[in-house]
C-alpha cells in the first residue's frame, strides 16, 4: 500500500484492518447475479413487444402470446396501412425526421468542435465566461426555454418552418464542452506551436492538425446529437403545427389522437390504423436509437464522464 493509499483510506475511515481478505458468500453472489439477470430481462420486454407487434394482426395481438411472432408479411401489411393514412404522410414524417436530424447533427457537430478547438488552442478573450455559460446551458434542460423560444421564433416568422427546430437544436453546449476537453487533453500545445512555426495559419491548424486527430471526438459528438434529437418531441410540437412538417414522434402522437388504435374516444375510421400499425411507427423511432446505443455503449460512458478531470 502506498502512502497516498494509506492517507486516502484513513480519510475515508475504513474499518480497522483485519489482515484477512473477505470473500463474498456464494449465496449473496447468486442473489446479486439473479437480480442483475432479472432486471436485464425486464429491460428487454418493452422492446421485444414493440418489435414483434407489427408482425401480427390487431386480432392476433389480443389472443396470441405477446412474445409470439406473426409473419414477415405482417410488417409489410402494417406499413401499407400506414401509407393509407393521409395520403402517405408517414413517408413525409420519416423523411422530415431524417433530414432535420441529419442537419442538426451536422451543424451541431461542426459548430461545437470548432468552438472547442478555439477555446483550447487560442487565447481569445472571455474564455472563462464562455465556458461557464456553456456549462450552465449544458445542465439546464433545453425544454426549459421552449415558450420564450417560441416567442422569439414568432418574431422572426420562423414558426412552422423546420429551420426553427434545426437551428434551436443545433445549439450544442454539451458538444462544445466535450470538444474543449478533447482538444485540451489529446493534442499537445507543442504540436500547434510547431505547426505555426511551419507557417500554418489558424484555419489550417484546425483542418490539418486538429481535425485529422478528431475521429473519436466527431463520432462522439454525432452520437449524442443523434440520440438527443431523433426522438425529440416537445420542441417540434411547439414550433411545427402543420402535419406536413411533423417528425415521426409527432406523427406517432397524431396517430394516437386521430385513429381508434389506442384511443377509445375516436370512432371507427375507414383507414386501417390499429395497434400493429402504431407499433410499427413506434419501432421506426425506437430501433435506430437502440442500434446507436448498442454500437456506441462506450461512447455514452466516455461522453458523459468526459467532464471529469482528475489529478
Amino acid at each position, binding site marked *: 500500500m502506498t502512502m497516498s*493509499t494509506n492517507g*486516502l483510506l484513513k480519510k*475515508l475511515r*475504513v474499518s480497522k484492518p*483485519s489482515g484477512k481478505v*473477505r470473500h*463474498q458468500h456464494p449465496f449473496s453472489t447468486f442473489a*446479486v447475479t439473479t437480480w*442483475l439477470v432479472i432486471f436485464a430481462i425486464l429491460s428487454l*420486454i*418493452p422492446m421485444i*413487444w*414493440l418489435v414483434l*407487434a407489427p408482425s401480427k394482426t390487431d386480432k392476433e395481438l389480443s389472443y396470441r402470446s405477446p412474445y409470439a411472432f406473426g409473419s414477415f408479411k405482417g410488417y409489410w401489411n402494417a406499413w401499407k396501412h400506414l401509407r393509407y393514412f393521409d395520403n402517405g404522410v408517414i413517408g413525409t414524417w420519416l423523411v422530415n425526421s431524417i433530414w432535420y436530424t441529419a442537419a442538426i447533427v451536422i451543424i451541431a457537430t461542426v*459548430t461545437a468542435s470548432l*468552438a472547442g478547438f478555439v477555446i*483550447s488552442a*487560442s*487565447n481569445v478573450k472571455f474564455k472563462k465566461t*464562455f465556458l461557464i*455559460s456553456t456549462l450552465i*446551458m449544458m*445542465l439546464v434542460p433545453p425544454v*426549459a*426555454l*421552449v*415558450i420564450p423560444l417560441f*416567442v*422569439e421564433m414568432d418574431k422572426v416568422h420562423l414558426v412552422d418552418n423546420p429551420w426553427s427546430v434545426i437551428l434551436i437544436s*443545433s445549439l*450544442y453546449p454539451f458538444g462544445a*464542452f466535450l470538444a474543449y476537453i478533447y482538444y485540451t*487533453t*489529446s493534442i499537445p500545445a507543442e504540436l500547434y*506551436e510547431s505547426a*505555426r512555426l511551419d507557417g500554418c*495559419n489558424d*484555419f489550417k491548424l484546425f483542418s490539418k492538425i486538429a481535425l485529422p486527430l478528431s475521429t*473519436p*471526438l466527431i463520432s462522439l459528438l454525432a452520437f449524442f446529437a443523434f440520440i438527443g434529437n431523433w*426522438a*425529440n418531441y416537445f420542441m417540434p410540437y411547439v414550433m411545427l403545427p402543420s402535419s406536413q412538417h411533423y417528425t415521426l*414522434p409527432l406523427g406517432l402522437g397524431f396517430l*394516437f389522437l386521430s385513429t381508434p388504435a*389506442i384511443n377509445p374516444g375516436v370512432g371507427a375510421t375507414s383507414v386501417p390504423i390499429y*395497434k400493429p400499425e402504431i407499433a410499427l411507427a*413506434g419501432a421506426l*423511432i*425506437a430501433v435506430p436509437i437502440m442500434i446507436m*446505443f448498442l454500437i456506441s*455503449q462506450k461512447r*455514452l460512458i466516455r*461522453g*458523459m*464522464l468526459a*467532464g*471529469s*478531470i*482528475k*489529478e
Partner: protein
Amino acid sequence: MAKTKHYRHNNGAMYLMLTPYVLLLFFFGLLPAILGLLEIPKPSMANANGGWDAFKIVVHDFRFAPAFKHVLGFMAIFVPLMIFFVIGMALMLDIKHSPWKKWLRMAYIVPASISGAVAVLVWYVILQPTLSPIKGALKFFHLTESTQIWQQKNLVYILAIMAFFAVAGNWILIQYGSLQSISQEILEAARVDGCSVFQMAVRIKIPLISKYIIYMSVLVFAGGLQIFVEPQLLNGGIYSGIADAWSFDQLSYNLAFMQGDFGGASALSILLLIPSLLGALLVIFKTDMFEGAQGHIKKKNIEVQGF
C-alpha cells in the same frame, strides 16, 4: 489548457471559427431568456394591468397547485428511485468482472430508446391487462381491468415508472463507468484490509464517485421537473382528460397556446428555470466535476477519463 500567449499573432481566424457557436448560444440560450423576462410584464387577459404581478397570478392560477402536487409526487418517487436504484445496480455490476456481464449492460441500455411518444404507446400496452407482455404479473396483483390502473390517482406512479425506465439504463452504465475510474490499488488495499463488499461500496466506492452522483441527481431532477410529453399524450391521445395541465410544462403550454397568455407562460418558465439553474451552479462550483474547465488544474497534471 494549450498556452499560446507568447504568440502575438492576430486571433481573427479563431474568433471567426468561434462565431457560429457563439451566435447559437446567444440566439437560443441568452436571448430567449431575456425575451421571456420581457414578455412577463406585458398586459394580457390574465394580467390586465401588466407588470410583474404575472408571477403572482400564475402561482394563484387554479391549475398551479394541482400541477405542483403532481410534479412533487412524481419527483418524490422518480428522483430517489433513480439515485438508489442506479447506484445499487452499478455497484452490483462492479462486484465481480465477468465477460458475460457485457450482455447485461447491453440489455440495460435498450429501454433508453423507448422514450416520449413511443414510451406512451409501450406503457399503454404493458398496463393493459388484455394485451400486456406482463399479463401474469398484473394478474398476480389482481389487476384484470385497465380501469383499475389508468386512474388519475395512479398517474404519479405510472409516469415515474415510465420516466425511470427511459433513463435508468443509461445512468447505470455511466455510473458503472465512473466506478471503473477508481484506482485498483485503493480497492485492493481495502480488500486486503478486510473490507466486505458492502463496506467497500459504502465507505470507498460511493464517496469516490460522489461527484458523479451529484451530477446525475442534478440532471435527473432538472429533467423530471420538465415532464411534458407523456402526460400530454396520455391526456390528448388516449384517455381524454386524465392529465389535463397535469405538469408545470403542460400548464405553461396551455397558458401560452390555449389562452394566449405568453406573459404567464413565460413567468412559469422562468420560475422553473430557477431550480435547474441552481442545480447547474451547484455542480459547476460546488463539486470538482468541471474544475478543469475553470482553469484550476495545470495541464501536465490532468487526465481525462474516456479519451
